């Protein structure tokens, strides 16, 4: 089996943020502290490499919350593998962006 692709620190942070449940562009930006000019192109690359995938929120949900619909991102299985490999490469990643269940604890 081919080894998972080595990710840059920025890409790993974005994957970690998506895995933590922060799943639309602006929320990822706020969590990682990265500017929009870095986050969005990085997400495009990750989506192109099939490490993440996206889907639009239903209009009814957005209407109920009186805001425009969001485009949500989630990890694919390849993305999850790549993130796992990145965590060993960047040990501070999980401390910078803790997962949702860790936050709850």
């Amino acid at each position: 089996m081919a080894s998972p692709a080595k990710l840059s620190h920025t890409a790993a942070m974005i994957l970690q943020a998506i895995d933590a449940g922060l799943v639309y562009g602006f929320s990822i930006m706020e969590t990682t502290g990265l500017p929009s000019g870095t986050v969005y192109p990085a997400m495009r690359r990750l989506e192109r490499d099939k490490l993440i995938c996206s889907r639009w929120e239903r209009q009814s949900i957005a209407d109920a919350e009186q805001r425009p619909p969001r485009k949500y991102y989630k990890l694919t299985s390849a993305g999850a593998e790549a993130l796992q490999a990145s965590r060993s490469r960047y040990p501070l990643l999980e401390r910078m962006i803790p997962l949702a269940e860790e936050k709850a604890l």
Partner: protein
Amino acid sequence: MTPRCEPVFRAIDHGLLCCASYLVPERQRAEWRREWKSELWHARQSSSVSSTISWRSEREIAGFCMGAFQDAACLRRFWWQSRRRSAPLHGSAAQCILWLGCLLLVSYGASRLLPRVHMEQDFSSSQALPGTILIQDEAVQYGSIPTMAIDQVRLWQRSSQRYADGFAFYRVTREPVELGPDPDIWRVAEASSNLFAVAGWPLRYAAPQQPNTHDDLPRLVLSLRTWRQQFAADPYVVGTVLRIGAHPARVVGIAPADAWRLPGKADAWLLEPDSAMGRNGLGYVIAHLTRSGRAAMWNGAVRITSYDSRKLEHDFLGKSFEEHAPAPTDIYWFGILLALLALPALATVSLAEYSFTSHKPSRMRRAVRLGFLSLKIVAILWIAYFGSIDLAYWHFPVLSPSGTYIQLAASFAICLFGMRWALLDQRQRCPVCLRRVTHPANVGLVSRMFLAWSGTELICEGGHTLLHVPGLPTSWFGAQRWMLLDSSWDFLFAG
């Protein structure tokens, strides 16, 4: 910030997103706009909650919107990359020929469609017949001064001439022409009826001569400028009768564009038999030389001696038309000559630097490669011809100094840089498949050049060859080298 400013900032932010969206490929644009508008809403909500200084928050939002340009540029880059991958022609010889063909088609199309350039082609077809000369008194220093009398022409026409088989006389006068309530003053050339036949200029919209009609009216030929300015280029003016001075004349055609390169500018030519022309007033004589007359020409001129009824000798000089102005094709060839002379200063002309470290390509492949180079050069020469004519004559008239200089400069520049491109392009084409080599990689370090070579390595996408280009030419690695890849390299290109 006052609340009145808020819509302005919103409009600016939306304008930024709208501008950025035009960088996004069209197919993805709508979804991209939708996502960024949604994200902008969240950014605005976030800043209005957390920030107390409005100017600062607006600056942050504007900064957020500026990121959209990077995002859009990223998507555009992906689009280009996918296009390049999917395009089977990319970098191939066929693509190169296709581009050159398109350029040639555009330059040729422009030369046919641009009215002034089209006129230039009329001019090329309306060049005076070879061997047509302007005869003047030998003593005259300036060619624009009329020196010839109609009697001299009659004298020549009465006897058979060894050197010339046709004579035509003209003289320019100012005549009132009735076009409206107030008569216009035109420069009218009173000319022999065979003037255009002797010079070999075909008329535009020439009225067909009908043998059954006994029209005794003098014939009038309008200049192209007069036809356009006075008659709005109406072709139906041919056949109408105009009053020139005191006499009517029938319009029989329009003179070809800028063909008139003889002294004495005229708005119209009044063609009538020599016998009908008055003896007063000097003019100009043109003649068409016979073969022996042309053989007697030296340095574009021929000396003519004539004797009058009192056996007095008169010397005349006949000057060829061709020496007055070079034709556009002559200027073009001169431009090519200059470009060929200048080419070695810009690029290495020799193709001998293709040394192969392993097998050499077959003779057939080398012939195809040479044929491809020849095809490129021929296409460039044609593009230079049509392109230089388009550039020179879309605005300036034919034979004007500006048009001539522009044509020379354009043909020189297009040929020079075109041929330089053809040679440089040829050096980067795989000798096997004629594709351009890609994926340049720097190899080695210049500081270690005594231990190993350093330079750039390029590879053929078809997996045929590697090209090594030295970064710093040395005595043992002065020119680029091709390496033909054998089957052991196939695994790299599998799939």
